[in-house]
């Protein structure tokens, strides 16, 4: 078990804002927006790939937060990941509902890999990050890139299949194997 409360400062601020938002405090939503909107838009934009659509999703995400803040449970995890999950889910729902395959941005998995490994963040975030980086680094680079591009850029199995010139089913098998070994690595260090 990793300690989660070493750097609880920002977490406590965000959790306090969510509590006020649950009490219908619009100023608290604005304060949350000021602290997190750029982070969330960054996540959405990488997946949605269209600036105007991405801002529409972000607007939707904050209205969602306005209505759902009361369902945030501090025991279930830190507030920022909870907010990021809402943003990513809405962005992915948007692109998966479109039938056309959008052109992925040209950024390679390595660029994300470098930023992921860069220093920064609170102590607890660093511990979680270091564990994930250690486990990702044991993976085959191609399969690691599949995970990173799917998570960070919203690549579908089909897009990954095109990029790596493999059948979609092969990509699905890759993802399943990769995710299973990632989980086993994170939970047992093996």
């Amino acid at each position, binding site marked *: 078990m990793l300690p989660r409360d070493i750097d609880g400062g920002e977490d406590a601020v965000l959790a306090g804002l969510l509590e006020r938002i649950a009490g219908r405090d619009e100023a608290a939503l604005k304060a949350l927006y000021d602290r997190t909107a750029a982070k969330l838009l960054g996540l959405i934009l990488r997946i949605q790939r269209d600036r105007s659509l991405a801002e529409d999703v972000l607007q939707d995400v904050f209205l969602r937060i306005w209505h759902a803040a009361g369902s945030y449970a501090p025991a279930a995890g830190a507030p920022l*990941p909870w907010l990021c999950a809402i943003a990513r889910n*809405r962005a*992915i*729902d948007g692109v*998966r509902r479109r039938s056309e395959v959008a052109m992925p941005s040209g950024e390679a998995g390595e660029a994300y890999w470098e930023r992921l490994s860069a220093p920064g963040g609170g102590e607890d*975030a660093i511990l979680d990050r270091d564990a994930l980086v250690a486990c990702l680094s044991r993976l085959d680079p191609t399969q690691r890139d599949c995970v990173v591009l799917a998570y960070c850029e919203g690549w579908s199995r089909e897009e990954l299949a095109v990029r790596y010139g493999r059948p979609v089913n092969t990509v699905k098998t890759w*993802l399943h194997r990769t995710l299973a070994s990632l989980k086993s690595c994170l939970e047992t260090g093996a």
Partner: protein
Amino acid sequence: MSGGRDDEGLRDLRAAEYVLGTLDAGERAAFELERTLDPATEAALRGWERRLSPLARAVPAVRPGPALWGRIAAALPSGGAGREGAPQHDARLAAAGESLRALTRQVRFWRRATAAAAGAAGLAAAGLALVLAGPLRPVPPPGGRSVAVVTSGGDLPALIVSVDAASGTVRVRPLAARAPAGRSLELWYIGAGAAPRPLGLVGTEPARLALPSEAGSAAGGTLAVSVEPPGGSPTGQPTGPVVYTGKLIPE
């Protein structure tokens, strides 16, 4: 349902791929239904959100345009009236607009986002198309019951609609559905290739509504919710924006 080790493994991979984002639209919708029904699925999902969340820090932040907060504030109950330095809103207008702006904005977005995908059933073009791939339960109970979880794209379903073909009733349990001020939400049933049939108004309390007779076999039908004048559509067809849609699947 007592899942064996294989079931657990597959459930965990569904949760992992949901968080990773690689499920297709139908699989995502099915998973969202599964997580609302099954606490073990929800727990698997939380586990994967936690494991992969450090990846989010690898994504650079992007500052939103200066107008975006104003758009969000305008959809809040005060209509942004309390905002410092905000343009003054007419108070009555702001109150009347309430969340209608949010809904129409949402619909406009989904119209754009789904424009290419929405070949199906005309109505889907305006709605938050949610295709539920099922069945999730191995043995259908007698009587042909169906359930639709209707979401507006977020974590919580907006409505849970269960259809009992044997008794010809539809039960509507509103969860997160909210009518814009001065408007009603109306529930519609759309059979394959047929025009929408009104089922009734969606209030704040669970309601039991009669199923149209032609919906004897509910599978393949679609339920939709539209924003209508108070009391419902005057024409018998949806007149306002369709804010939710969901397909019926065997339970």
